[in-house]
């Protein structure tokens, strides 16, 4: 299907990204996003606060950890409490009393991954609400309308999301439709001066399709681009190649947001490949299973070996949990009948992710990013050469060797 070319670009999309430093070997960049609710240093990891809350921790705690941007979820919030109420509460910022930046996704991913009875047409995604059984249509226009009501600083286009394990004509259909939906989102966007609409590059694991999508979408003058349709079930080898392809064709002066990526190794590698923004439920979700993230991997604190371990999770970590509590205490809490441990672990895991990104950024600014990567891999895998082969290849492709 040919693209009906009508690049409805924004008159002059704000240039929200300022580059501060670039790695001379790899594609890593350090920058600063200028957003309505304050500046955000990049590379940045954005914790996911799905339903207008960061899973048990307060806005004050999140602020104290240094978080300056987090995610809200249009699908969930669109259903409960709904955009009208949130608008009355002075937007999502007012509703949850978050003074810094918010990014909302379009609802597309949830629609497809959570709702079994959803149907995608050119109009949009038709689905049944799990709460009251009502049938609704999430169209590009409706998604933007909800996000306009939410008032988030960055809003995402509604894209036709297809799992990365799907092959065949559906992938191509979804890619072209995403372009058409991008144009519809741009046209429907009521607040381009207050909210930054990002495009989402699709195309699955097919290099040609991705290249086409990149070529078309970059004709639209949006403030930023996301790389979507990855971090599903695809192999890491395919994953990194699509990321690298995408960053090679995206404009340098606009932020690159890699959606759904959050494992430490993936973050470091994808920064090397030229990505600036990341989000993932992993750190907060794994906290609720009793797992604490550390530079060498993770600690399963429910296990017996931590029963009498009176060290903090990470002696180098400055977060409140590590300052005040021991592994033994958290272990005991995890075996009690209340949720206290989950809060402490959520705080720590977010701190870990943010600290990692800070360290990555500092190394780029101080022109020692490749050394940082080697140290990181050494700590995580025992020896830099023992890191997974996909990561070694990906890093080599941008000039960083680990051996």
């Amino acid at each position, binding site marked *: 299907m040919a693209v009906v070319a009508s690049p409805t670009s924004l008159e002059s999309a704000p240039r929200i990204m300022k580059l501060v430093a670039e790695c001379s070997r790899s594609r890593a960049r350090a920058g600063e996003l200028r957003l309505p609710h304050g500046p955000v240093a990049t590379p940045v990891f954005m914790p996911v606060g799905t*339903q*207008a*809350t*960061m*899973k*048990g*921790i*307060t*806005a*004050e705690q999140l602020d104290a950890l240094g978080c300056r941007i987090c995610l809200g979820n249009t699908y*969930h919030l669109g259903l*409960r*409490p709904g955009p009208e*109420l949130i608008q*009355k*509460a002075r937007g999502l910022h007012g*509703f*949850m*009393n978050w003074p810094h930046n918010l990014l909302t996704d379009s609802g597309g991913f949830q629609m497809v991954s959570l709702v079994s009875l959803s149907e995608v047409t050119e109009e949009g995604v038709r689905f049944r609400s799990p709460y009251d059984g009502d049938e609704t249509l999430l169209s590009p226009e409706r998604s933007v309308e909800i996000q306009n009501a939410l008032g988030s600083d960055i809003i995402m286009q509604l894209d036709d999301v297809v799992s990365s394990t799907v092959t065949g004509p559906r992938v191509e259909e979804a890619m072209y439709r995403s372009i058409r939906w991008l144009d519809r989102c741009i046209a429907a966007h009521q607040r381009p001066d207050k909210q930054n609409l990002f495009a989402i590059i699709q195309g699955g694991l097919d290099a040609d399709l991705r290249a086409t999508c990149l070529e078309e979408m970059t004709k639209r003058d949006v403030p930023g681009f996301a790389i979507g349709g990855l971090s599903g079930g695809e192999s890491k080898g395919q994953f990194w190649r699509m990321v690298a392809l995408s960053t090679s064709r995206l404009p340098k002066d606009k932020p690159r947001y890699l959606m759904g990526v959050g494992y430490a190794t993936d973050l470091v590698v994808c920064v090397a490949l030229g990505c600036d923004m990341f989000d993932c439920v992993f750190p907060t979700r794994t906290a609720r299973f009793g797992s604490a993230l550390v530079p060498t991997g993770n600690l399963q604190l429910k296990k017996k070996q931590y029963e009498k371990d009176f060290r903090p999770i990470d002696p180098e970590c400055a977060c409140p949990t590590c300052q005040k509590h021991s592994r033994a205490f958290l272990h005991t809490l995890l*075996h*009690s*009948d209340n*949720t206290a441990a*989950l*809060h402490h672990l959520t705080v720590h895991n977010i701190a870990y992710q943010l600290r990692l990104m800070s360290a990555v950024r500092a190394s780029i600014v101080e022109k020692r990013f490749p050394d940082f990567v080697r140290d990181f891999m050494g700590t995580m895998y025992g020896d830099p050469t023992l890191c997974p082969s996909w990561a070694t290849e990906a890093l080599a492709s941008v000039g960083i060797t680990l051996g």
Partner: protein
Amino acid sequence: MPESLLYCSLHDPVSPCPAGYVTNKSVSVWGVGGRVEMTASKFMAIQQALQPDWFQCLSDGEATCDEATSIKRARKSVDRSLLFLDNCLKLQEESEVLQKSMIIGVIEGGDVMEERLRSARETAKRPVGGFLLDGFQGTPTTLETRLHLLSSVTAELPEHKPRLICGVSQPDEVLECIERGVDLFESFFPYQATERGCALTFSFDYQPIPEETLLQQNGTQEEVNYVDQTKKSKTTSCNQEMTSFEINLKEKKYQEDFDPLVRGCRCYCCKNHTRAYLHHLLVTNELLAGVLLMMHNFEHYFGFFQAIREALKSDRLAQLKELIHRQAS
């Protein structure tokens, strides 16, 4: 929490405590791991590890005012508790780490006046740091008798040692006990309110601006009526039913209520969030709901106790009591 005074009670006030597990030699307690049977020596070994500032002595609390107790059973609860106390005191003497801890003697005796008095007098003879009035919980029907019993007991206790009571936490009951010489209470009432998704909103401002009183009375009346209706509907997994001292934030009417939980409250929740937000968090089962509610409920409850202390100092307890009584359903 190095700044706090740590008190170790025998039982968790919000967990059920099955009867029939006290012997002449041991008492059982329940936790996540199941039942733990403790003799005096095992109990004291645990206290040596915990090193609390105060701890409730091992005691037989199965003769309560809740059900009619036989005199025989009441007598046994007193005898056993005194024996445990003497054993524990002896073990404390022999323990170096426990020299800085204070044993709180436990007054037993069910609803039998004679036994209660005996328990009070005998316990007071021992070198305890304070007294726990155990087994005074009950139903509204037995309230008068229990309060009378309580007065008689505290009259036997030395003035200069603290009196604790367990199982009593609701504002109206708290005041009744304070009038009868009780000093310390468990704070499980705000916790239970939190568990059922409720926020404490009762007023303890007994010297308010007249117009504000009127507004509050109007507000309270409306809510009391509403509560009467909803009280009959099924409750959540929480044991206790909602009281008239609180509001149930799950109710639809709070969906668009952008006021704080309590106007003027200085807790983190009231300074930063609205009833609408709490409603949303509860409806979506978010963990943060409990965090915010607990912060408010403790602040509110401790504010109530602050008001009690001030009222006592300025001899205005009657006014505070009247205010609280008006709000009790």
